[in-house]
């Protein structure tokens, strides 16, 4: 369970990026965090992961996110970065996937078993020994998801998981996200993907929550979305988006 209680954050004094933000995500929920550029979506992720520190309370399974709990909390939360190159810092996919399990004290054999299991489940076995700088963008994104799943996190956070992907690879990523049993928090401008993968949507603007509810309701509300400089998902607009 993830909970934000009256969280505030500003990069510069007097210019809040997150303002009195409160929400709660139950175990197993899939939540889409949407909003125009600069709405504060990525900041929410960074606050949750302890990469930034704000005011207010952020709880993960009832434990506040602070210096003492960071290790335990980060083990529970797997974060897929928007830029896979920044996520995949080891030379090969295999080494990248082994990184977290070895850091968390698993034996080499146990970690390898886990890595093989994830690769097989995602159909990426052939990528195992490939070099990270020599795989395609789509493969890199899938491999980045695989590195996170090798941690066996309780919740998966994703920042724009389908950005810069062609339709085929986008569909593969969407199907993978749908198949994940974990709690999911996904930020994206790809509203069709959010509609496909999330039951609930939180719409943010200027660091505040503008709407929070079922994805099927919020993503059908043209007036609400357009007021926030967004458009209906293409699948719901009948090709009329933006007109």
């Amino acid at each position, binding site marked *: 369970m993830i909970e934000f209680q009256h969280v505030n954050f500003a990069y510069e004094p007097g210019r809040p990026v997150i303002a009195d933000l409160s929400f709660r995500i139950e175990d197993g929920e899939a939540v889409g965090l949407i909003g125009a550029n600069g709405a504060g979506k990525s900041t929410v992720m960074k606050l949750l992961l302890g990469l930034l520190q704000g005011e207010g309370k952020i709880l993960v399974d009832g434990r506040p996110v602070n210096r003492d709990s960071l290790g335990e909390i980060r083990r529970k939360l797997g974060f897929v*970065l928007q*830029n896979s*190159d920044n996520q995949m*810092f080891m030379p090969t996919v295999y080494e990248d996937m082994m*990184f977290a399990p070895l850091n968390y004290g698993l034996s080499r054999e146990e*970690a390898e078993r886990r890595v093989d299991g994830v690769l097989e489940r995602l159909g990426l076995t052939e990528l195992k020994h490939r070099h990270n*700088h020599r795989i395609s963008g789509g493969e890199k994104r899938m491999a980045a998801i695989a590195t996170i799943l090798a*941690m066996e996190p309780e919740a998966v956070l994703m920042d724009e998981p389908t950005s810069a992907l062609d339709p085929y690879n986008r569909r593969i990523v969407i199907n993978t996200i749908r198949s994940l049993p974990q709690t999911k928090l996904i930020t994206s401008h790809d509203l069709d993907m959010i509609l496909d993968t999330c039951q609930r949507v939180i719409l943010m603007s200027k660091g505040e929550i503008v709407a929070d509810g079922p994805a099927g309701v919020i993503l059908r509300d043209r007036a609400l979305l357009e007021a926030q400089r967004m458009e209906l998902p293409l699948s719901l607009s009948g090709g009329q988006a933006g007109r």
Partner: protein
Amino acid sequence: MPLFSAYQRACPMNKMQKALRELGEMDDLAARQSPIHSLSPTAKLLTTIAYIAVVVSFGKYQLSGLIVMVLWPVLLFQISGIPVGLCFYKLRIVLPLVMAVGLFNPLFDRAPMLYLGSLPVSGGAFSMLTLMLKGVLCLMASFLLMATTPIDSLCASLRRLHVPGLLVTLLLLTYRYVGVMTEELAVMTDAYHLRAPGQRGIHVSAWGSFLGQLLLRSMDRAQELYGSMLLRGYHDHFHYALMKPFTVRDGAYAAGCIAAFLLLRLVPAARLLGSLFVR
């Protein structure tokens, strides 16, 4: 007429993209199968270090002793199937620098050391050739190590040999991100050329902003990368997944090679061989 034809004629392939492709070729070489490739990286690393140390230890006039040291890289090229030409092609930028090291020796050391027929060969010429050969041999040995060992295994071996973790991590991440930064530089260079048609290279007035942009991008990337490492449990200690065991075979290879290097260093093999034919 295609949109980019003029630009493509001017620069058929961005230099950065070429560099990137060459980096990939090294990975391909290291991924090949051969008796040398299958050896433990630690054994290869130890022998390479020993070889370089022995090569460097030869005196400046010991050209005949040094020539025998060519045997080891030649053997490795043969067994590993790595083309010798490729080695010289890859080292084409560094080699002239290495060759230039002793270039002025003949000017300072003019005393004749021997006569080829009636032609005197000065000590300076000797020391120049020795220095050049030393440089070439050391570069060849390093190239062979890189071409037969994946970088991750090499880093794991460095850690096994107690090289400070920070240095090894830096080496590993640099290797990984040289490609990424080169890619960014390639995109920036392309963007520049598309708006500066007919210009050769990047004008000196743009160098500052180019480097500045690259630095800023590197810093952003470094920050995000470090965040990503922390989120996956990094605590100042890198775990290497590819730790090839050091077997008896590897030990025998390393010991055999090092013994041979020492023997070649201590016994004037070339002179002995020559004395069989010349009395």
